[in-house]
């Protein structure tokens, strides 16, 4: 077994995976980087060159509608005994997955390519979701009232077709 720290870089749709791997490689030049990608993911040459190994998950996508599959994913991540777990978006789902995987160090690759440590506590993440949703709905209600209650009075077409 190698003494190098093992860092899992968890793939998410929406960013160029090679950029994420490159940022992690720069941040942890001596780590053994494992790219964890969905089943069937067509890994590119760039991505393969940036990771020490690439592991596919059992399924190509996961959702809350299939908790058994999700739990299997968590079990697989725990069994791999990674030293670090890197996510590509600061989303509640990924934070909770990171917390459940029980990997000691969790980090986020920010949009500008920095690797920053995060503390993915489940309770705090869920509380944050609740607060944000409550605030968001309040703001939405205020905007809805403004949009539907206040009309643009003088427009070139009087506001209609």
């Amino acid at each position, binding site marked *: 077994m190698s003494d190098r720290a093992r860092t899992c870089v968890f793939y998410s749709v929406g960013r160029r995976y090679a950029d994420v791997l490159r940022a992690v490689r720069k941040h942890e030049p001596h780590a053994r980087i494992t790219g964890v990608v969905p089943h069937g993911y067509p890994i590119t040459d760039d991505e393969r060159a940036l990771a020490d190994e690439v592991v596919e998950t059992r399924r190509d996508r996961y959702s809350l509608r299939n908790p058994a599959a999700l739990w299997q994913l968590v079990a697989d991540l725990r069994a791999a005994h990674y030293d670090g777990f890197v996510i590509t978006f600061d989303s509640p789902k990924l934070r909770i997955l990171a917390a459940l995987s029980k990997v000691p160090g969790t980090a986020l690759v920010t949009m500008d390519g920095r690797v920053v440590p995060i503390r993915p506590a489940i309770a705090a993440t869920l509380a944050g979701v609740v607060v944000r949703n409550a605030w968001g709905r309040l703001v*939405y209600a205020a905007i809805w009232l403004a949009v539907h209650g206040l009309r643009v009075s003088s427009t070139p077409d009087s506001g209609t077709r």
Partner: protein
Amino acid sequence: MRLAFVDLYFCWPPHGGADVDLYHVIKGLQALGHQVKLFVASCASTWDRGSVEPSQLPFPATRLDFSPREIGPRTMPRRFRDAVDAWKPEVVFLTDGFFLKPYVAEALSHYPVISRYYAYELTCPRDLRLLRDGARCPDNYLRTPNICRPCALAGMAADIKQWRFLPWAEEYVAARAYLPSYHALVLRTLRHFSIVIASNRLHKRQMDPFNDDVRIVPGGVDVATFVVHPPPKRRSDERKVILTTGRGEDPAKGVHTLREAGALLARERNDFVIRVTHTDYTLNTDWFQAIGWHDRDAVARLYQQADVCVVPSIWEEPFGLVAVEAMASGRPVCASRVGGLQDIVVHGETGFLCAPGDSAELARRLAQLLDDDGLRRRMGDAGRRRAESEYDWEPLVRKHYPPLLEKVAR
């Protein structure tokens, strides 16, 4: 002349066509002897805003760093005005920006301002696509704000309710773009611009009533990056490659039409494979490959491996950069008859134009090209010639931009 370029989103390496356009225009004007400087907003929490290192650009640039709280009409316009005033330009080019752009425009209204629009950001506050139920929306925020305002809110409802933002919705809330007073601000600033640059004829028609000088200036292509390589010599059992680049996941890009066309072709032949820069590889079949995202250099190599390129967009593409790139690479292009694509692809000469969403017509044209090596070569050659004569950056900037400056200087 001293020319200031103010952009709320510029990134380099580029995140989109607007970045590429601005980069080459500034470089081109600098080469013509003008003093240029780019002022760009940056916010570390927003990937698309100012991800750039000014020292690595070939022209002077100042990055104005904003915290998430400062992204709004109170701070941004003031910071831009102070930075631009300190440099004392003669003309300001105001380029990419969403809902905060009118505020910045007003803060810089003591200069002659040339405003560039890259998509329908001024006329479609829902998502700048001017697309509703899969077809072109007949409305236009400038003329029908009381129809467009509820539509925009509906489009952004999920983002706002969850309070998790992409830049478009983030600016919508920050700029209070839902208020009637915002519409007045938009019209006021639009009327005040010295010149407005539109992307295509539809875009110009939308803005014509609100400014006396709306001009169409096309984008260009780097003909040194996108070069002609002879089409791959294929064995008789090797499949020809049909390529689509661009944001394949975006429904407006029409990949579903291309898949339908592919299914029609696959009933009759198996000598082709469709490659799409798309991240949903669960779509993959025997003849369809989602190949993920690629950077610009990798895309240039993809064209070299392709036999035919397709731009199946269903929205009114403001310009159609990928069609020009394919033409510069010497490949025939099948494109939808929409937006700027209609002016780029010469039907029957550099490729074919098809009705948007018409998979049967697209399949017929693709079959025609797959069957005829000579036709592909002729159209590819004609495309390269057209790219060099009409879309090469250096002559393009020389042709279109000095007249703008002459008018402003008068």
